């Protein structure tokens, strides 16, 4: 069922915390570090703001991959938000895996405000990873599929 032609351009949603990862994304821009246009960033105050509903919503609406980026453990602007996020997201990803959704469609990465290069590299590799999987068919809403 895999549609794996080279023209496949995945839609990738990246939730980035305002204080570290969003700034890290800005830094990769400031340093002109290229990463694929497939990645579209949504700014959230903290990785702990990311509700599993948002992730599922993205897949419903046609995302092929979802990545969450937050401050490194210990560096959360709100001291502990990313620790809660880490548990929640671990369990959610594990559940998606349990339901047979491809593991490589989801990722969580800690990116600091100084890690512009890491941000770009992460997005590059994640996009490649999702591209290799082909379009999300297992967790999409057929009604939302582009015609």
């Amino acid at each position, binding site marked *: 069922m895999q549609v794996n032609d080279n023209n496949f351009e995945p839609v990738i949603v990246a939730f980035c915390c305002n204080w570290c990862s969003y700034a890290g994304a800005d830094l990769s821009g400031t340093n002109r570090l290229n990463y694929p246009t497939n990645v579209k960033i949504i700014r959230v105050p903290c990785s702990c703001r990311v509700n599993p509903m948002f992730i599922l919503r993205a897949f419903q*609406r*046609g995302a092929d991959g979802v990545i969450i980026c937050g401050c490194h453990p210990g560096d959360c602007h709100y001291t502990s938000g990313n620790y809660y996020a880490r548990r929640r997201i671990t369990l959610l990803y594990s559940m998606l895996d349990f339901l047979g959704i491809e593991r490589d469609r989801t990722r969580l990465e800690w990116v600091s405000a100084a890690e512009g290069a890491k941000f770009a590299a992460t997005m590059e590799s994640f996009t490649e990873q999702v591209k290799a999987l082909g379009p999300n068919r297992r967790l999409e809403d057929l*009604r*939302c599929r582009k015609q």
Partner: protein
Amino acid sequence: MLMISLDRLDELFAAVAAKQTLYLPADREDGQAEYRRWEDGVKLSSRLNTVRSAKDFFFPQTEDLVEFKMEGKNIEVIDPRKESEDFVVFGVRACDARSFTILDKVYLVEPVDSYYKTRRDHGTVVTMACTRPEETCFCRTFGIDPTAPEGDCACWSDGESLFFRANTEKGEKFVDSISSLLDEGDTEKLEKINERTRDVLSKMPLANLSAENFGGDKLNEYFNSDKWGELSEACLGCGTCTFVCPTCQCYDIRDFDTGHGIKRFRCWDSCMYSDFTKMAHGNPRLTQLERFRQRFMHKLVYFPANNNGEFGCVGCGRCLSKCPISMNIVKVMKALEVK
């Protein structure tokens, strides 16, 4: 009567399915039966009381009504219906067959529901007489004879052969389409089986349940009964009874934003839900007691009051076996009945 040997059923189904889609009750792994599209290898279940009723074929749980597409400031309205294909629903019990009569009274009166009507027009209902009723069966309470089912075409099994009788024009067409496979057979054994079925039914726990004291006459008395509180107190407010019910006909209409348009669809609703009939001003039935009462008043009082005494229940027994807390129309009738 025309008949076919039971070992030739596959041949029969193949012949039907060659011309139109055929659905029939088939066994599931968990021991329950469900309607399945026939294909090679699908066997007719011995349990005709499927979890979901045959209502699904004419009034599916969700159904797209219309689509809107927006282009700039223009809105394009699209009818999503494709030309419906003919289909056959096989193995419908007498109670379920009667449910179509009830649904027809709702959907085929003016204004006619064209979505429902299209499906009714294209579907042929082939019923089958019951031979092994369950303790939850009480169709006879509503005047249904499980050994003489309605439907476009009825059939009976005597354990060796399957006998056919067309009841309608559509039924005749159905019998014609398979006539090459049918032979004339003797119905003597059949009569005995029907007799035994009726006998078994009279020994069932619910054999003496009567609906004669229900109907529109005692509307206020039933509505104001002090029994509702006790009856509804354990109700979870889930929709199981309504969704397995062959006669529940309520739906909600919702819009779904697909990102590139709007799909307007309808889906089953349940009067047990707290947002049922919620309107701009709020909700007319705010407590579970009122919602619970609505369901049974509708089936036992309002519906017959508006439909020449026809009850909104066919006694199929699904809600009896599926209610998570085992509260059901039989318990309601027994508790409520005013002689």
